[in-house]
């Protein structure tokens, strides 16, 4: 674990991993995938935000949150509310008994836009709400829990319960939230058709850039004294407390940051997939997010992204051929990873990756001995499978 840390500190290897990930998602995938597959990949990459957030709160913070779906959902719903209001202009909804309000409200005999929907007609308010509302909500939960020294399995259960409550609330308040169907039939963003292929391509790239930005931000946090304190708190909470730190504040901060990151993912999900529903808020998605992080490696920001892609790719392939087996398979995979590879893909790379690097180094040396000019290209191909 400490060498993961040193890598982050050293920066060079971490940098290589980041460049390879960027190259993959920004260049290689768009080059070889058709528009449909790329959009699907974009959807997976929105889950990667939640996986990265779990590396922060769970891997480094040592506190398992089974409620990242809450924040993913809040971000997604905020974006969906804005898009839905734009899609519900009086002209578009002229056939309703109350034109100008979202269709599901009309079906539920609601005759005026509820007060909490109104500010979402502003795009700038929506962007701020996506970032602030989930963070503030996390602040409330975090303050209530961490200041009272609630942690570990209790925290996990409570976050899970909150995600259930939120799901029940969304489903129950059909007239305000769209209920079990969620908020659907989203069309335009400030007049720009978001269902077109070109819009989806652009969202894909925006998503990738945001994801890389989030990873860089997280890495900065983790390599600061704050990051070392997180590890210290995870190991010896009392020692940190009796070194003059208010431990709860550190946990609250990382939980809030994790919530904000998940919310960005949720908002990007709505934009790329074109709807938001309670099935992305509850227990199942929240636990899936934990599995992404666990499989990728909960101490590795970049590993979490690969874990997310691998699991979702598996899900797509297997659920096409064996739909009823997939959940068992994923459960089995999770148990296997926790038992045999506690550090996930990133851990595997750290343990066995040197065989690959050694071979590349050997090849590189061969090339170097024969002709010096090919130096650069050899270097670039060297850590192709770098994960952490």
């Amino acid at each position: 674990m400490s060498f993961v840390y040193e890598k982050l500190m050293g920066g060079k290897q971490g940098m290589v991993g980041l460049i390879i990930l960027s190259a993959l998602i920004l260049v290689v995938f768009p080059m070889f995938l058709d528009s449909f597959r790329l959009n699907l990949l974009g959807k997976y990459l929105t889950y990667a935000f939640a996986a990265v957030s779990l590396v922060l709160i769970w891997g480094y913070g040592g506190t398992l949150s089974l409620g990242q779906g809450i924040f993913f959902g809040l971000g997604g719903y905020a974006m969906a509310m804005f898009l839905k209001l734009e899609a519900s202009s009086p002209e578009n909804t002229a056939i309703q008994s109350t034109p100008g309000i979202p269709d599901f409200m009309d079906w539920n005999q609601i005759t005026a836009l509820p007060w909490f929907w109104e500010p979402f007609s502003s795009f700038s308010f929506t962007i701020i709400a996506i970032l602030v509302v989930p963070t503030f909500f996390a602040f409330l939960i975090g303050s209530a829990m961490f200041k009272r020294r609630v942690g570990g399995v209790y925290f996990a259960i409570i976050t899970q319960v909150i995600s259930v409550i939120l799901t029940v609330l969304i489903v129950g308040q059909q007239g305000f939230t769209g209920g079990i169907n969620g908020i659907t039939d989203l069309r335009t963003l400030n007049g720009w058709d978001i269902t077109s292929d070109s819009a989806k391509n652009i969202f894909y790239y925006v998503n990738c850039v945001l994801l890389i930005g989030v990873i860089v931000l997280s890495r900065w946090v983790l390599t600061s004294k704050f990051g070392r304190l997180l590890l210290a708190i995870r190991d010896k909470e009392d020692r940190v407390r009796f070194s003059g730190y208010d431990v709860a504040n550190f946990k609250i901060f990382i939980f809030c940051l994790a919530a904000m990151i998940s919310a960005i993912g949720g908002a990007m999900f709505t934009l790329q997939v074109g709807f938001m529903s309670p099935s992305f808020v509850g227990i199942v998605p929240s636990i899936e997010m934990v599995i992404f992080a666990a499989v990728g490696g909960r101490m590795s920001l970049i590993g979490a992204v690969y874990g997310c892609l691998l699991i979702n790719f598996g899900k797509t392939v297997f659920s096409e051929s064996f739909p009823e087996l997939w959940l068992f398979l994923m459960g089995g995979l999770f148990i296997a990873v926790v038992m045999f590879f506690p550090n996930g893909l990133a851990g595997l790379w750290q343990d066995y990756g040197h065989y690959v690097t050694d071979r590349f180094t050997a090849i590189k040396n061969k090339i170097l001995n024969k002709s010096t000019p090919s130096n650069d290209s050899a270097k670039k191909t060297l850590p192709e499978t770098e994960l952490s």
Partner: protein
Amino acid sequence: MYSNTDYTLAVEGLTVSFDGFKAVDDLNFYLDKNELHVVIGPNGAGKTTVLDLICGKTKATSGSIKFLNQELTELSEHAIVRAGVGRKFQTPSIYENLTVLENLEVSYPQGRGVFGALMFKRTQTVLDKIHEIAREIMLETELDTEAGLLSHGQKQWLEIGMLLIQDPQLLMLDEPVAGMSVKEREQTAELLNKISMGRSVLVIEHDMEFVAQIAHKVTVLHQGKILATGDMAEVQNDPNVIEVYLGH
């Protein structure tokens, strides 16, 4: 209710009861500046509980703990540390996955808030201080070693160093030489004698030979109450002490 004093630490009428059992019972206890005071006593006498009470880990049922005339019983743990009280735990409590240098850096009394910690920079001043402390605790050559790989004795020293870097006015050590070799004990005694200059030190210890080497004053605790206080010779000859503790 409790008057001000010239003492570094003035404990008066301190009582804590767990479900009716009084682990510490109406304790009065004073610690001078530059004093190295050792608390001894049989198992369950309430020694560790006293340290827990002073550093805020356990809340007192009644009584007062004044540190430089500041009431500690109402402060939270981190505020007590920031006031200048450092406490070493019985089992070495260090961050095993961080290096010795990082252990000391994390304990450096700067950047203690969330944003302070994000912005904290490892400046030359910080490094100089870390080196100075590492020299004092005999770990200067081990700065880049992962703390988990240190010997048991070195871990104890590292934890003492993590407290020293905060320059506390009161240093409390719970069994600092437990599990140490004879040579390490001697080195620790030397270290404690050195660091008690300029600050007050409160030590809990079982090893009487070691106590004789370091103590300016000794207090014997028994069933939450003070049995005897004085220098080593006085305490050793006290008939009550011989009866309940040393005699056995």
